[in-house]
């Protein structure tokens, strides 16, 4: 049997209130200026992998890839310090691909493999569009396997592929376009209903036996007719997180599933359906392992950790929608490919070196130990989960940043070692010497067409 072994989710720290731009109630999540689909996927996957065996495949789905050509999944792989001998597959072009990826991961599990499936999106809509107001940013990750440790097993499934012009975007376009919603709904709704029925039939489950149903589509009208057709009642519907997150593209169905799993009990039947250019349906049954398989951070915990005073103009600036006055400082240099390659374990996975002579932690690993001077005595030590504290700090108004001032700090780690780095997801007023910090994978900047990924510290979320 194939199932989900573990999962992890990620919601960015910032929220954009819809009232700021006259789009009604609630708020949407907004990736920070130093985040993208890759960095968010890494954050979700770190929770999914904590304590788990190393997967042999990685699937990444996004419609907002940081690189149009160059494997974004490889960046995720590297940041998670996964072995090089891993298969990786990247899915895109359609926001259904998150759920498609999960189904593919479960299919690979049938063959005995274990797969890390990540889906993440930064959803950008044209100013004034419903995609802008109802979209959200986030990431989710699932580890699939045939293991008896599965927290949920696949009971039924169905797929459909549909050629339709409903939601689309050209490679050179910044925003999606949409045909009249009613047309897409009329085409896709029957296809979605049919796929759901096929999955239910396969599992021998009646609609009223379902504990929770997650319905997802890029076109909100597509799902509208489904509940009535299946005679589902209100209690069966998963909270769509409309007023707290928004639809997070490829991550949406998975994030809603994560939210369901946060509270699920053994025996719960969960139906997931995502209808965009066709449909994927999964029917899952929660197992007894659920209580031991939950991640450190629940969706509720992510939701509670937030800053909701993001201004609309800063949001537009962060997303590259609105031009702005650049800092009067030299633009940062692109990271050099060979140098990045040499220091991959440090740069991407935050692996440091511990001196075997004196035990001091060197960040990054040095040939000659900073403490005792011993040469070539470093042993690599993963440090991404290390906890640190502010040794000293300063608010830098002059640093080159999309959102000055930058809060820079010298961070001392509890298990040894020191770095100086930027703090992110932080309210400067809340930081003092001694503030507890954790590391987070970020896109520092993009220089001459190369994204510079590295780690920053943030107050514990």
């Amino acid at each position: 049997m194939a199932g989900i072994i573990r999962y992890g989710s990620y919601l960015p720290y910032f929220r954009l209130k819809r009232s700021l731009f006259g789009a009604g109630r609630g708020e949407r999540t907004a990736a920070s200026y130093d985040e993208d689909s890759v960095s968010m996927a890494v954050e979700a996957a770190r929770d999914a992998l904590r304590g788990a065996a190393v997967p042999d495949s990685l699937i990444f789905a996004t419609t907002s890839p940081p690189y149009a050509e160059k494997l974004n999944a490889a960046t995720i792989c590297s940041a998670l310090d996964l072995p090089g001998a891993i298969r990786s597959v990247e899915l895109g072009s359609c926001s259904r691909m998150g759920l498609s990826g999960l189904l593919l991961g479960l299919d690979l599990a049938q063959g005995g493999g274990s797969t890390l499936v990540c889906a993440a999106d930064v959803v950008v809509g044209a100013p004034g569009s419903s995609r802008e107001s109802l979209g959200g940013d986030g990431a989710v990750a699932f580890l699939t396997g045939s293991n008896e440790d599965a927290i949920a097993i696949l009971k039924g499934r169905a797929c459909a592929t549909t050629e339709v012009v409903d939601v689309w975007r050209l490679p050179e376009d910044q925003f999606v376009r949409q045909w009249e919603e009613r047309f897409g709904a009329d085409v896709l709704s029957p296809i979605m209903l049919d796929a759901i029925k096929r999955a239910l039939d396969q599992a021998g489950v009646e609609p009223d036996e379902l504990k929770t149903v997650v319905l997802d589509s890029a076109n909100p009208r597509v799902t509208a007719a489904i509940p009535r057709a299946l005679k589902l009642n209100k209690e069966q519907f998963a909270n769509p997180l409309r007023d707290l997150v928004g639809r997070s593209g490829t991550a949406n169905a998975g994030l809603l599933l994560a939210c369901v799993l946060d509270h699920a009990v053994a025996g719960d039947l969960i139906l997931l359906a995502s209808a965009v250019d066709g449909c994927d349906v999964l029917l899952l049954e929660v197992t007894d392992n659920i209580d031991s398989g939950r991640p450190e951070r629940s969706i509720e915990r992510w939701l509670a950790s937030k800053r909701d005073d993001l201004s609309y103009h800063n949001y537009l600036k962060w997303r590259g929608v609105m031009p702005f006055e650049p800092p009067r400082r030299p633009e940062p240099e692109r990271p050099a490919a060979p140098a990045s390659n040499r220091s991959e374990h440090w740069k991407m996975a935050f692996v440091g070196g511990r001196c075997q002579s004196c035990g001091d932690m060197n960040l990054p690993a040095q040939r000659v130990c900073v403490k005792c001077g011993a040469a070539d005595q470093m042993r690599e030590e993963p440090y991404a989960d290390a906890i640190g504290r502010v040794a000293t700090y300063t608010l830098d108004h002059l640093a080159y940043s999309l959102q000055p001032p930058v809060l820079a700090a010298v961070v001392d780690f509890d298990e040894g070692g020191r770095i100086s780095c930027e703090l992110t997801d932080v309210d400067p007023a809340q930081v003092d010497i001694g503030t507890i910090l954790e590391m987070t994978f970020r896109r520092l900047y993009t220089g001459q067409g190369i994204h510079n990924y590295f780690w920053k510290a943030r107050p514990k979320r």
Partner: protein
Amino acid sequence: MASNGIYDRVTIVGMGCTAFGERWDQSASDLLIDATNEAFASAGIEKEQVDAYWLGTARGYSGRALSEPLKIQYKPVTRVENMCATGSEAIRNAAYAVASGAYDLVMAVGVEKIKDYGFAGMAGILPPSDGTASTMSPPATFALLVPAYAKKFGVDEQTMKKVISRIAWKNHCNGANNPKAQYRSEVAMEKILESPRVAGAFGIFDCSGVSDGASAAVICRAEDAHRYTDKPIFIKALALAAGPGEGYASQDYDFTTFPEVVASAEDAYKQAGITNPREQISMAEVHDCFTATELVLMEDMGFSQRGEAWKDVLAGRFDSDGSQPINPDGGLKSFGHPIGASGLRMMYEMWLQLRGEAGQRQIVEPTLGLTHNLGGAPGSCVSFISIMGKE
């Protein structure tokens, strides 16, 4: 071990310095020509008499940056660079060359043309990297000193701000008496206290001037000095210390000191036979790139006890009429900081003061002076110290 020094073996016999500032009308070549012409004239020599040159510049490339504008005829010209201590590095290498006997008469020159870059500060020219190094701006790296110092020595935030503001106020007062300084007016304490923040506790008045400028020194062995001037100034010590970068890597470092400065001071005092710098050093030109740097330097160089410099600052000890004047020419703060020229500019003030030619800002009877030049930031830097005497 340590350095043997060249106590009293080498002298400076001529100096020149351009006005520092936003010299929109002058290229680096113009600045070099003006500074070296003044130095040649000061030593009463012709260009052809100089045997070798050391050019300190952070952004000019190779000896050609000097040989081409001056049309130097096939002589050795060495370009040196050691971050903001570049100008001092030119003096140090030039002095050692004459001490060795390899040359008789040499020139150290420093120049920087910063204001053509088009933004605050200067573009880095770091080698290609993996992009993981801290991107803190220079004021931010030095601003780290403020909360660390305040916490360690129990100084409250308001008092700290007052202390660093007083350093800016003092150096502006000094610069007001200096016709070559970039900023030549006094600034009220209230204005300094309320200036817009740049990084941490630093407002714009806590930062040194960003400027263009050049400075030059003619150097020879002591026995030859009187051929060129009646009043040479004598090199008592030249010390340089480069750190291992421990501050950003080891939890032992607490951001209230520059270990590189402590090491270079110790070396310099040993070379010059100084046992009580607080009493023996008449005056100093120190690297006040930011106000808090000057504060910490006073302790690292032994001018104040640990944790006491802030009190000495408030008491006026380092004012031009205090018992140990610091930066009587206005320092980096008011004179300006054209990177490669600053170390030589400090020496230029030493030249004027020790010869009694500093005019309005003349210190009473200085006997020993110290210049201190720093490159880098707290946690990882190079520190240069010279001690100069009038006999």
